[in-house]
């Protein structure tokens, strides 16, 4: 018994040793926290986010850093789980004393992080969280979180863009929508798509919810097939899209699939989604020099074509570092003001000027899965 006690004391001591080394280093570095899903159901998103942010930081460091200091990335994994995201943000802010956060990827994680960041006056910019609630607290009465920004368009624009494209360009009149009612991002897209599609003269006879643990969609698909629609809108992440589209094809669905930027992954099932359309933040085929230089640098470093997640993480990190540089001082209140004042800043995914809610107004790219590849289909301008 005694030896066990002794052993456990030793073990605790051993575990404490590395913690002592983690004391925040102040002074000659600017540390930026990156919160992203490095593991779990959307891990390719986290992987791309880290690579994009790292590339931006490397480029700044090569030019001498920011405010004369080196920039250091501190990475945390939120597993695409809001509870994990909350823990990661709390630890970053309170233990590591980090002043700037890039992240997270999904809105359901970014919303809790944004509340912690805003309360602690930490400047946060999410690359890819498209839900409106990330920068604006809907309760009470829509208060802006002044320390929170994003580098992407919002769902209020993304859902309707696809709805109008389906109605006007593709000529579809009947849509079905399946959505995860436990995911703010998916729900937001489903709602805005439905509203715009019906407003534009289309009908949505099937509008069905599921939960993220569901694997069997036969009941929903059979319901849909009683009156087959032209288009099935599945604005979920690639993993769920793979499950649903495959089961729908097996059940004889002949229409077109459509979705949002959650489709942008190398792990998307290109066979079952063939012919499908999705809204995205950029196309690597865009000839603008910002895009081509970035694609080249990214390929040189990582050996693959950057997806939208990598691009937006790169853009978000650049926007943040630009704001720190403009503010001229490592003071979050001043950096926040500098960020808000950003005007016509050229990023890979377009020119950024923030509106009063911390959202940039940018174009939407619509991509199609064709021959097992993403191909450019159209660009939608913001109204």
């Amino acid at each position: 018994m005694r030896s066990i006690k002794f052993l456990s004391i030793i073990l605790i001591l051993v575990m404490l040793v590395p913690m002592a080394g983690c004391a925040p280093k102040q002074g000659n570095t600017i540390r930026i926290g990156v919160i992203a899903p490095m593991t779990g159901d959307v891990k390719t998103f986290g992987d791309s986010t880290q690579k994009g942010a790292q590339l931006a930081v490397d480029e700044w460091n090569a030019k001498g850093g920011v405010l004369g200091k080196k920039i250091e990335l501190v990475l945390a994994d939120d597993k695409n789980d809001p509870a994990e995201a909350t823990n990661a943000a709390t630890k970053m802010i309170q233990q590591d004393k980090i002043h700037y956060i890039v992240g997270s990827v999904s809105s359901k994680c970014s919303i809790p992080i944004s509340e912690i960041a805003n309360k602690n006056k930490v400047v946060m910019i999410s690359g890819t969280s498209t839900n409106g609630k990330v920068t604006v607290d809907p309760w009470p009465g829509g208060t802006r979180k002044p320390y929170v920004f994003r580098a992407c368009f919002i769902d209020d624009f993304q859902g309707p863009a696809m709805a109008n494209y389906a109605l006007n360009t593709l000529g579809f009149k009947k849509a079905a929508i399946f959505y995860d009612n436990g995911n703010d991002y998916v729900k937001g897209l489903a709602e805005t798509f439905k509203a715009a599609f019906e407003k534009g003269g289309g009908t949505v006879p099937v509008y069905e919810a599921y939960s993220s643990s569901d694997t069997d969609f036969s009941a929903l698909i059979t319901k849909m097939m009683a009156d087959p629609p032209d288009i099935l809108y599945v604005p979920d992440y690639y993993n769920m899209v793979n499950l649903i589209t495959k089961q729908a094809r097996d059940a004889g669905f002949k229409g077109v699939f459509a979705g949002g930027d959650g489709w942008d992954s190398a792990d998307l099932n290109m066979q079952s989604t063939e012919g499908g359309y999705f809204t995205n933040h950029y196309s690597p085929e865009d000839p603008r020099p910002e895009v081509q230089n970035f694609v080249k640098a990214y390929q040189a470093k990582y050996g693959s074509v950057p997806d939208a997640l990598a691009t937006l993480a790169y853009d978000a990190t650049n926007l943040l570092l630009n704001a720190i540089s403009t503010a001229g001082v490592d003071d979050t209140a001043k950096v926040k003001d500098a960020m808000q004042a950003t005007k016509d800043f050229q990023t890979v995914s377009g020119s950024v000027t923030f509106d009063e809610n911390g959202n940039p107004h940018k174009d939407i790219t619509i991509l199609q899965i064709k021959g097992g590849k993403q191909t450019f289909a159209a660009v939608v301008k913001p109204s």
Partner: protein
Amino acid sequence: MTYVLQQLINGIALGFVYALIALGYTMVYGIVRLINFAHGDVFMVGAFVGYFVLRGMAKVSLAGAGWLNGLILFLIAVLAGMVVCTVLNIIIERLAYKPLRNAPRIAALITAIGVSLFLEYFTSLKFVFGPDYITYPTPLPMVTWDVAGLRISSIQVIIAVVAIVLLLAMNYIVRYTKMGKAMRATAFDRDAASLMGIDVDMTISFTFGMGAALAGAGGVLYATAYPRISTFMGIIPGLKAFTAAVLGGIGSLPGAFVGALIMGVAEVAAKSIYSTIADGVAFLILILVLLVKPAGIFGRNEVEKV
């Protein structure tokens, strides 16, 4: 009408999947009166073993290129899942449950929950299976038949056939073999069975192994039908199969089978009416059964020994 029949087929197909898991639950309970909560996680391990086999043998050709080769690979994956799960469950029984055989039942139950969590979190470590969602390879060509306007897919048929064959095989083993007799005797009165010269430890190990073999096969079949696996995939099917076993009368093999079919149909029916209440319906059934007929449909009322 076609619509209702199609939903009924969907429900029965889902029920067969639950049946594969529920049979293992109910067998173990019948012998040692233990609800093996780790059963859903053994099912998960089966799915992963099948995945590694299919991935490792993706380039292997045993019978040319066509569907026959796919079928052989698929059967090897199922078999590998069954073997690994059998060994795993026997080890779990020896290490975790056997030392507690004479302890209060609640102790073994809590251990089962512990084993379940251990399997989930240990396997999600990077060097084991990893924490990510994985898309399952499908060696079999998926065919969908159109029978009088009703759509039935090849995987639904395979699951149904495997479930029925395994049920009959288990029923045969339990009723007509020497080992089955030993199992029934152990279930009836463990001490008396031991006095009659039955190797109780061996019998219990055999039961655990057999339940796990079913779960392993179920894991591979489930993952082929719903091709997305993760280390937490066993929790919800495990709970639903458990509910099915209770509904049918825990300890009864036909009970687990019928209970699972009822669960599958009820779930699909609920989903086709209002999609988000399906899980609620599954567990509402559990509560209702426990209130109205705690012994389940095929269960016997037991007198608690004092």
